[in-house]
């Protein structure tokens, strides 16, 4: 079964072509151009280079978040547009689950960190067990204040392998809190790659077997909604007094 994967949840545009869980072609761009400018040209180039046509595809996978709100939507709109015309089933995977594949086979816990702004990370915790085909999710995806999350990880008293786009900036802070127990992989491994999405999508496809309706996974409400809810709550508690 041939499929395409798209990941635009960070500043990296990652597009890949795969067959039955095996990576066939991969595009990776970490430059200043926008996803919108490079995603279709990248797909076009990959198809040309692999001698594949869109018509051969059987499924389309997309990473649906968390990450950049705009990036999530660009990826999903593109994947949905292609799937709609080609009448293909879709698969949506979580960015953090996808990044767990960067640490396949490691004995440390795998902790992806994605930039969530406001001094927070989108994060989760995974563990690979020899012989298992999927990383076990030990802490589910969430947006957490950086200090709080690092403190929680210190309490665990285990070696931890960090991946994700937020690491470059967080290296010092991580090593200060976790010292020797922190392992930070080089950027070419820890940024989102098409190869990881290819694995995560294939796994998810085998679970669902038929595809699914894909919606963005933001984790966070929009700021306007949060503020409105706060105001409502204040208004209600005033009313009770």
């Amino acid at each position, binding site marked *: 079964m041939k499929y395409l994967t798209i990941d635009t949840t960070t500043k990296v545009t990652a597009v890949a072509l795969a067959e039955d869980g095996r990576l066939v072609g991969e595009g990776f761009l970490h430059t200043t151009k*926008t*996803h*919108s*400018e*490079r*995603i*279709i*040209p*990248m*797909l*076009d*180039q990959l198809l*040309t280079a692999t001698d594949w046509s*869109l018509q051969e595809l059987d499924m389309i996978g997309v990473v649906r978040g968390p990450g950049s*709100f*705009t990036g999530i*939507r*660009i990826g*999903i*709109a*593109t*994947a*949905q*547009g*292609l799937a*709609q*015309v*080609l009448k293909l089933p879709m698969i949506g995977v979580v960015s953090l689950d996808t990044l767990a594949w960067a640490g396949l086979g490691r004995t440390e816990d795998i902790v992806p960190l994605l930039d969530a702004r406001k001094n927070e990370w989108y994060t989760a915790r995974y563990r690979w067990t020899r012989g298992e085909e999927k990383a076990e999710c030990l802490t589910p995806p969430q947006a957490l204040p950086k200090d709080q999350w690092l403190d929680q990880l210190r309490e665990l008293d285990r070696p931890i392998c960090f991946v994700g786009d937020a690491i470059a900036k967080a290296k010092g802070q991580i090593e200060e809190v976790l010292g020797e127990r922190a392992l930070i992989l080089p950027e070419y491994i820890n940024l989102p790659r098409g190869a990881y999405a290819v694995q995560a999508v294939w796994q998810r496809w085998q679970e669902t077997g038929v595809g699914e309706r894909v*919606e*963005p996974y*933001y984790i966070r409400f*929009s*700021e*306007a*909604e949060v503020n*409105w809810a706060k105001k409502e709550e204040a208004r209600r508690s005033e009313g009770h007094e």
Partner: protein
Amino acid sequence: MGGIAKGSECDVMEKSNHEVIILGIETSCDETSAAVLVNGTELRSHVISSQIMTHQKYGGVVPEIASREHSLHLQPVVQQALDEARMTFKDLSAIAVTYGPGLVGSLLVGVSGAKAMAYAAGVPLIGINHLEAHIYANFLPHQDIEFPLLALLVSGGHTHLIFFEAHGQYKVLGRTRDDAAGEALDKVARTLGLGYPGGPQIQRIAQEGDAQAFKFPRAMLEPDSLDFSFSGMKSAVLNTLNSARMRGETLTVPDVAASFQQAVVDVLVRKTMLAIKKTRVKTLLLAGGVAANSLLRQTLSETLGKESVRLVYPPPILCTDNGAMIATAGYYHYLAGDFAPWTLNAVPGLSFT
């Protein structure tokens, strides 16, 4: 590098002997809309999914929420438009999409979706300037419009007087230097407690008011200028309301609304007549959200009638943001062979050049 630089003009020749069928997609603000248009005249389907109710409690459009809504609605709206037209992507000649101006996050949903659809369907992509599309909404119900002509575009974000020599050949003669006409109406409506969207609310309540009750200023700028300025006029209303409040008086809301609406319409009409005198055109196209204002239409129609200038405006459904106007503009771009590359990006600040 052939792949990366390649535009989207594949297969055009193949289909050029047949009907021209354009799918138009609009997501620049708070409407997700798609339409299927045949030969520039037959609207086979037109679907508009409005978010007005979603934004109402925030008192205006919230960009992030708008983008989230577009993301959920784009695919079903496009599918409905195709289904109602009894067509599939295979029938299309091209896909036209708004790429600016508008909210960047919202535009990117439409642009990304349209690009993927066009690429997968093997048809060209057409990037549409939303402002131009508002004007082109007039060509859908009126195919007998003659050039040269003048267009008055009035909306919440824009106030432009544009001279058109022919399709795609235009020149901006005047524009607002501060607030757009619709923006000024919205702000006054909000201060009067009339809610959102403000323009229609002002028009509704003004019917019960006296337009002569208050003498608000009419900003005309330099005698020869075709530019507009509404922020001073808006401030005059807000000042009048404030000083009345300080004196403990309450003003009749319908009178304020009617008087301000009259002032805005007076300025729009006077500038338009000046532009018509300068260009000697025989046709005026009215466009944008405020084009639905009945006082503006009525006053223009009376004034233009005396000069035997034809006034054309779209039906109300084509005055709001909609996919049909994108498809209509797209049709004329298609005829001109004006297609977008796969690198097309959203341009939130796009204007007329």
